[in-house]
């Protein structure tokens, strides 16, 4: 299904509704710090990638505008096992970057089905992650997100998450939140 096929009738709309609600639920679990429930929504072969963005010429923007996940330095480029380590770190109570606890809201919007190859669905969306910390420390992480979801007997799982954060220099002091 090409990205232009947005008129496939009620089945497609039902699918979009279903996967969107899944993404929103997932966002709520993160913002409510229900990390173990959130981890259950990630497939065992989950891969989380956030490449670095770079200032390049217009002609190169599509090929050299970001570092390559899988071989170059990224903000994140890791399997589920590393994500689990991050969750464990948050729970230690001495992870100072998130002590005291930040206030975080994940907004997911512009959700669109890009491809269906059952039981997997490729989605395109935008993310806005807002973090407020201590008092006046406020960060906005905004960009584009590509997710691959898989329908299993145990419900939907996220298989692949690839995010393009719209910053070259990170304007926040750290990335101690999941994008």
């Amino acid at each position, binding site marked *: 299904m090409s990205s232009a096929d947005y008129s496939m009738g009620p089945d497609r709309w039902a699918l979009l509704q279903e996967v969107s609600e899944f993404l929103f639920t997932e966002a709520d679990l993160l913002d409510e710090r229900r990390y173990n429930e959130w981890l259950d929504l990630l497939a065992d072969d989950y891969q989380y990638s956030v490449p670095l963005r770079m*200032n390049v010429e217009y002609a190169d923007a599509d090929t050299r505008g970001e570092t390559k996940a899988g071989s170059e330095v990224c903000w994140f480029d890791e399997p589920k096992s590393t994500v689990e380590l991050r969750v464990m770190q948050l729970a*230690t109570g001495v992870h100072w970057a998130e002590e005291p606890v930040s206030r975080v809201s994940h907004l997911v919007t512009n959700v669109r089905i890009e491809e269906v190859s059952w039981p997997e669905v490729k989605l395109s969306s935008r993310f806005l992650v807002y973090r407020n910390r201590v008092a006046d420390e406020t960060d906005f992480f905004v960009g584009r997100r590509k997710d691959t979801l898989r329908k299993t007997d145990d419900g939907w799982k996220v298989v692949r998450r690839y995010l393009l954060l719209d910053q070259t*220099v990170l304007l926040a002091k750290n990335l101690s939140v999941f994008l």
Partner: protein
Amino acid sequence: MTTNICPSSETCPTSETCNTPTLQAVDPHRARSLVDLETGQISREVFFNQEIFDLEMKNLFPRSWLFVGHATQIPNPGDYFSSWMGSDPVLLTRDVDGGVYVLLNSCRHRGMKVCRYDEGNTMQFTCPYHAWSYSMDGSLVNVPGDLFGVPHMKAAYSGKLEKQDWGLVRCPKVYNYKGLVFANWDENAEDFLDYVGDFHWWLDNLADAFDGTPGDTEVFHGVLKWRIKSNWKFVSENFLGDTYHGASTHASVEAIGIGPGGRGKRRHGERQDQGGHSTGRMKTSFRNGHGASDNLAYEIAYPEFVEPEMNEYFDQAWATRKERLDAEGRRLGGRGPATMFPNMSFAAGFPRSILVAHPISPTETEVWRWFLTDKKAPEHVREWLRQYYMRYGGPAGMTEQDDMENWDYATQASKGVVAQRYPYNYQQGLGTEQLSELDRAVHSNHAISGEVNARAFYRRWSEFVDNLGWDELIEIAKSDDRIESIIRRQAEEAAAEVAAGKVNN
């Protein structure tokens, strides 16, 4: 000491009604007066005073050897990498003949940044404003970076513009140390190798392959860049020898275990049977400001990995390195973390990484981080290191995240008017320094505590910020007066022991 030097204050007819603040002459001992080496106290003004920051920009950064980038970032003719040196944007470039240049990234006509790309390849930088162009092709211009094209040359300048006088400003001193490219704006500055001194052993361990092959390393593509709301010196000091913060600051990551040894093992993957942090890791402090968290005799082998194929590579690398260095009569230690004065920090082990703290204001810094790998590392080793580096360092790294929290909130809590009245405490290990075999260096007497490195760093810092000339800067660092103090103290201690009858002659 402040002196009214407003040139017009006596003769100016409006002097009585003039609201323009008079210029204050700078106290020539201003910076040194803020660093009390005797009692180990350093004024918070060093970190938060705008005037001090301005003096750093003027007197320290344009006279220091600064890390600009890695030669493997610009392997081919025409390759460039955009970087910073203190307050100024620069381009690290390679010309047609393979020469490495550092150029001020500012058009000589109206100052527009001629290149706003992070990296790329071009033989010509053309300014977007009025299209003055500068060539990296030495066959077209006298020296790469010289002015080549000027629109309407004949009409606008009657053809008389002296193009050779208006090239991009070239940094006069550039030194490529095994791929690490440093530059210094001051043509009178001491030569790179003199500036570095015996600290070069740490640079060697950074730049050499894990098996000791000289300079056989490269950087991964992708430089982490992020902003923090704190002074650049917090960053330099953290890597200079502050092993004291690890247990508290990094308690969470220590509890998890993200290193080579896997869960439940030490963060850096030290082999448990070889001493680890607790023995032998005395710090090294150089008179000229450089400092390392360890010493050359701290010869700890590469970590024990969970993955057998990783052990295969690193066991072999360690054996080869040991053989090579033994033959040269070199010690095997010296992996840092360390800081080369003033703002380049690095670690030469696990991870192996370079950090530069670019100053923006007294309370804002842009931090850059590069990661290195052996050129010859097989794919699985490269990939393991890449994954480890990303989960360890930078703003997303599970270790470094917590450092920024400290630096930013230390800044917030320190910059208040009342807070600035109270100096920071740098008394750790004061008067307990130990002798070193290295030139103009001493060691701490303890692996974790000991702020001797920081004291020497701020001492050198104050000498630069007070704008001592190069003759004096070199002269006062020709000997290390700390060594005499140690010898005197040891003699007194020995005499006291004899007097107390503890020693039988």
